[in-house]
Structure formats: structure tokens, C-alpha cells
């Protein structure tokens, strides 16, 4: 844009490729985490809270400070925690903007310097900061879980008028344009410039890789989620509660740390299974699993189980136990009940869990970069490679496809949400 308009800005005053640039990008992109969680929370609150405060003589500002902010503390903190975990997990933005983070450092020490010990130490420190953040959230949130079930009348949004309305639209538009419109238009522009060069047989292979690896991993995640969620529904024991909590851990661990853990585990496993490999094929290599796609799939399951699980679990919660019991009383055993009653009723939850997990895996970068088999590329790794090799224009089509797939998933969720309201 600056080139087209002939504007020169001294890099001393404005350099987007810096830590400030990265902070700006993260703010624009991760803003929905806090916004959506807080909004959904507020939608569930009763309007009488605000009406009562008004009757007690408080003005809008006072209501915001003394009522709305304190009750939304949990939701805001939850969103903020997710944002910090996402930033700690990030590799692409940090690497592209040349910002040194734990994730980029782990990559450097492991790949460029081959220093596994230091990479492990970095990963351990990173893990501690993750635990620190999660612990901090728990402490700040305290015991104040404002969960009112007095669903009398939900809070109704105030209609703004005149200047205030324009201002609100303007502020929302800033986030929408920086987070979505501008980057997408830029990518579209670049893809027009480069499509002749990048769209070839190899690109189709790339798409195929991305789709099938995400599909298989998502399928595994959904199946595991169903088994665990069903187990938790049937048995309310401490063990089932622990299993359910454990599924959530993976999502809070940064990709680079999971990658290192998975590599070490799989290499050990490969050594332990030597006898089996030799029995099948006497000339077998040592690292059978370690050089296969199984390692990557395994890591995806650990990292993204939480995404699928939460969707499936909320489905089970909504359906409850009564239909299961009714089916048992009508002479069906557990398996028949699952396929004839539970599964059809869980379908919306399963589809939304599938869509969310699929998109997350499609755009995953750090895990895929470290754990992919030799010469295996996905849309995400390829666009990273292009960007890394100063060929950012060529990265555009791959990125656009990822955006497109995500849009499809959002549309699917939207339709499902609409259906449920009926």
C-alpha cells in the first residue's frame, strides 16, 4: 500500500516486523476469544440484575463497573487465559516477525543447533509458565462462580443511536477489518499475482495431505471423545472425572512442547518394539513409528482431544441419561442403545466437534513442522515455508484455502446452531 501511494515511513517510527507488530497482530486475531466468551456469558444472565441496579439508583457507568465487570470476571479471565495459551503455543507469527519466543527458541536449539538437552529445558520452562497461567486463573477466579440459573429474562442489548451507534460500529469494524478483511483482500491480491506459479499437481497433493491427515486425526479424536464422555456419563466416579479432566490438558500445552514429548516417547517405543519389527522384516529400520505419519497423528490427538471432547461432552450433557434409561427399559442393551438412541441424538454435537477439530488441525503449524515425515507438507507448513523463504506472495493460495475451509466449518456450526433453536 505504501509503495502504491508513494509514502515513505522511516522504519525507526513504524516497523511492523517487531515485537509490537506481533502484539498488534495477536490482539486483532485473538480478540474474539475474550469477546465471544464474555458475550455468551452475558447473554445467559438475567436482565433483573441490571434493572435492580437501576432501581437502586445507579447510572449506566456505575452498573458497568459495579455489576457487569465483577460478574463477568470469570468469563473475561477464561478468555484471557485462552489468549495467553494461544500466544505461548504460537510459532508462525513469532517466527515471521522475528520475535524470540520459547517456541521459536525450542525450534532453533533442536533443529539448527541439534541441542536436545537445551530444547528440553526450554520446553520445561515453557510448561511451568503454562501451569503458572492456569494456576493464576484458578486463584483469580477464586470460588466466585457466578452461575445464576434464574433464567427469568435474559439481558436485552441496548439499542444505541446517533454518534454512539456509529462509534460502536466503527470500533467493531476496526477489529473485523484488521482481523479479517484486510488480510483476506491482501491474500486475494497476492494469489492473483502468483496462482500460475503455485497452482499445479504438487499443490493438489498438498491439499490432499492436509485434508486426509486432518480427517483421520479428527475421526480418532471424535471416537475417543465419545468413548470417554460416555464412560463419564455412566460412571460418576473420581476416575471418570479425572479422565475427563486429563483430556483437556493437551490443549493448554504448547505445540512445541508436545512435539518434543511425542518424539522422545515414540523413539523409546520404537526401541522397545525392535524385536517385533525384526520379526516382521529382518532388515527393518530402527525408527518405524518415528518416521511415519503415526507420530504426527498421535500428537494431533493429544493436542486437540480437548476441542472434540468438549463438543461431544456438552452433547452428552444436553441429552442426559433419561433416553438411555428409557431405551434400556424397552429391552435394548448398551450397544443397541448407543447406535439407535444416543448416536442420532448426539449427531449435532458430533458434527460440530468434528468441524472445530478439523479446522484446528488444518491450520496447525508447530507440531506438523516438527513431526511430519520427510517431504510431507500440508497447506500450513507450505505457506510457512514460502513466507520463511521471502516468498510471502506464494503463500497466499494455501492460506486462502485454510480460511475457506474455516468459513465452511463456521457456516456448518451456524446452521446447526440455528436448527437447535427451532
Amino acid at each position: 500500500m505504501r509503495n502504491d501511494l508513494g509514502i515513505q515511513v522511516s522504519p525507526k517510527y513504524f516497523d511492523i516486523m517487531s515485537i509490537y507488530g506481533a502484539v498488534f497482530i495477536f490482539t486483532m486475531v485473538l480478540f474474539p476469544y475474550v469477546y465471544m466468551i464474555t458475550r455468551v456469558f452475558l447473554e445467559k444472565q438475567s436482565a433483573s440484575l441490571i434493572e435492580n441496579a437501576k432501581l437502586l439508583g445507579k447510572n449506566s457507568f456505575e452498573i458497568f463497573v459495579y455489576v457487569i465487570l465483577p460478574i463477568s470476571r470469570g468469563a473475561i479471565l477464561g478468555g484471557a487465559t485462552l489468549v495467553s495459551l494461544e500466544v505461548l503455543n504460537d510459532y508462525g507469527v513469532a517466527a515471521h516477525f522475528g520475535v524470540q519466543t520459547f517456541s521459536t527458541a525450542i525450534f532453533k536449539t533442536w533443529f539448527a543447533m541439534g541441542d536436545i538437552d537445551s530444547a528440553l529445558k526450554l520446553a520445561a520452562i515453557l510448561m511451568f509458565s503454562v501451569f503458572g497461567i492456569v494456576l493464576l486463573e484458578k486463584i483469580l477466579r477464586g470460588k466466585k462462580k457466578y452461575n445464576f440459573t434464574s433464567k427469568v429474562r435474559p439481558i436485552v442489548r441496548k439499542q444505541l443511536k446517533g454518534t454512539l451507534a456509529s462509534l460502536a460500529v466503527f470500533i467493531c469494524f476496526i477489529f473485523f477489518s484488521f482481523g479479517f478483511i484486510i488480510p483476506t483482500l491482501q491474500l486475494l491480491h497476492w494469489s492473483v499475482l502468483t496462482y500460475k506459479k503455485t497452482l499445479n499437481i504438487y499443490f493438489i497433493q498438498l491439499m490432499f495431505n492436509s485434508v486426509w491427515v486432518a480427517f483421520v486425526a479428527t475421526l480418532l479424536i471424535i471416537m475417543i471423545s465419545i468413548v470417554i464422555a460416555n464412560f463419564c456419563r455412566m460412571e460418576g466416579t473420581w476416575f471418570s472425572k479425572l479422565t475427563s479432566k486429563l483430556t483437556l490438558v493437551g490443549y493448554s500445552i504448547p505445540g512445541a512442547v508436545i512435539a518434543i514429548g511425542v518424539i522422545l516417547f515414540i523413539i523409546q517405543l520404537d526401541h522397545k518394539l525392535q524385536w517385533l519389527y525384526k520379526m516382521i522384516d529382518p532388515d527393518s529400520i530402527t525408527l518405524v513409528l518415528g518416521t511415519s505419519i503415526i507420530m504426527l497423528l498421535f500428537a494431533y490427538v493429544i493436542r486437540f482431544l480437548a476441542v472434540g471432547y468438549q463438543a461431544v461432552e456438552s452433547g452428552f450433557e444436553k441429552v442426559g441419561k433419561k433416553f438411555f434409561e428409557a431405551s434400556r427399559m424397552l429391552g435394548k442393551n448398551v450397544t443397541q442403545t448407543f447406535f439407535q438412541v444416543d448416536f442420532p441424538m448426539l449427531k449435532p454435537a458430533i458434527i460440530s466437534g468434528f468441524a472445530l477439530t478439523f479446522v484446528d488441525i488444518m491450520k496447525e503449524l508447530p507440531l506438523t513442522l516438527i513431526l511430519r515425515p520427510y517431504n510431507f507438507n500440508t497447506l500450513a507448513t507450505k505457506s510457512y515455508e514460502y513466507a520463511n523463504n521471502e516468498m510471502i506472495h506464494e503463500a497466499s493460495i494455501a492460506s486462502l484455502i485454510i480460511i475457506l475451509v474455516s468459513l465452511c466449518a463456521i457456516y456448518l456450526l451456524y446452521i446447526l446452531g440455528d436448527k437447535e433453536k427451532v
Partner: protein
Amino acid sequence: MFIEIEDLCFRYPNAPKAVIQDFSVTIEHGEVICILGESGGGKSTVLRLVAGLEIPSKGRIKINEITMVDQSVFVPPEKRGVGMVFQDYALFPHMTVSENIRFGLKKMNNKEKDFRINQMLDLVNLGDYGKRYPYELSGGQQQRVAIARTLAPKPSLLLLDEPFSNLDTELRSKIREEINIILKQTSITVIFVTHDKEDAKAMADRIVILKEGKIVEIVDSILF
């Protein structure tokens, strides 16, 4: 005796007090028994224990001379031949009325199943409603479907959990009468649970009064 319940005890894990203590009753074939008590007094738990949805910590349940549960035996709910109408009916929302009734039918060919479904729909006066979905029915109609679905596989014992709690007062006495007629037609053994004395008097042969998990007395409904 058709049903024998002996010294039944039940306690939820981590709960300090037992929900059901030393519950014993015998029921004859075709008898309608009401368990009457306040909410939270363990009435529904008795039904769930008879149905096999919960496992008692002590005691024995025999149906038609066969032990369903004791210290060493546990027959799963789908093998007890017991039907239960749930408080909120639990009609499968993804199935039509006919499909809901068909769900429990086994060991029949399609023609026999269709015949049985129509028979049940006629019994509950919902002949034309087979193709509707549960959400297209009123509360009273849903309840009749739930009863038809439960009676279709010909259970030897029918359990009703607070059958009228979801209905308003006007509808209540009307539906109570309707159900009474249906039950008389099928001459099935029934255990039902309620907190309403009127319900108990109108429907039961005998009334078991339950307080804090213990039987206070068992009375003939004529004397109640």
C-alpha cells in the same frame, strides 16, 4: 406372590444417609400399588431399583419367582421384562410416535409390529397420530404415547414415575381416569409413585406410605 421385595436398602456413593431402608412389600398379580410420600423421600429410587437402573446395597427383588437382584445376582434392565413411564416421558425426539412404539418390539415380523403399533395407538386414543413427532403433541398426548410405548412389548410389570406431575389440575383428573381405564383393560401389575393423595386414592388398590426412605404403613386405598 408375583413381586417380592425384601429388605431393600440403597445409598448413593458418598451420601451419609441411606435413601431407602429395609423396604419390604409383596404385590399380587394385577394389583395397582402406589408409593406415596414427599419429594426427595426415596419414592423414585424404589422404582429405579425395581427397574434395574440402580443396584441396591442390600436386599432382594423377585419378579414372578425369578430373582432379579440380590447379593449375587443382577439382571440388567433390558432383561427384566419391566416397563417404565418416566416422569418427563423420555420420548425419543428423533423418532415419530409409531417409531417410538416400534422401538421396544422384538421377535415379530413387520406386519405383526404394525398391527401391535395400531393396537396400542387405538388403546390410548391416538389412532391418527402415528406419523407425528413428539414435539408436535401436547403434554397429555405425549404421556399417552409414553404409556403406549411402554405397554407395547407386553411387560409383566408397569412402573409409573409421578405420572401426573407435568399436567395442570384440570387435565389431571381427566387423564387419571383415562389411564385408569387403559390399565384396567390390560390388567397389568402396576407400581406408581406420587406425592398427591388424590392420585393415590383414585388409582391404587393399596398405598405404601414412605417417609425418609422407610415404610410408615401399607393401607388399603378404600380405608385411606
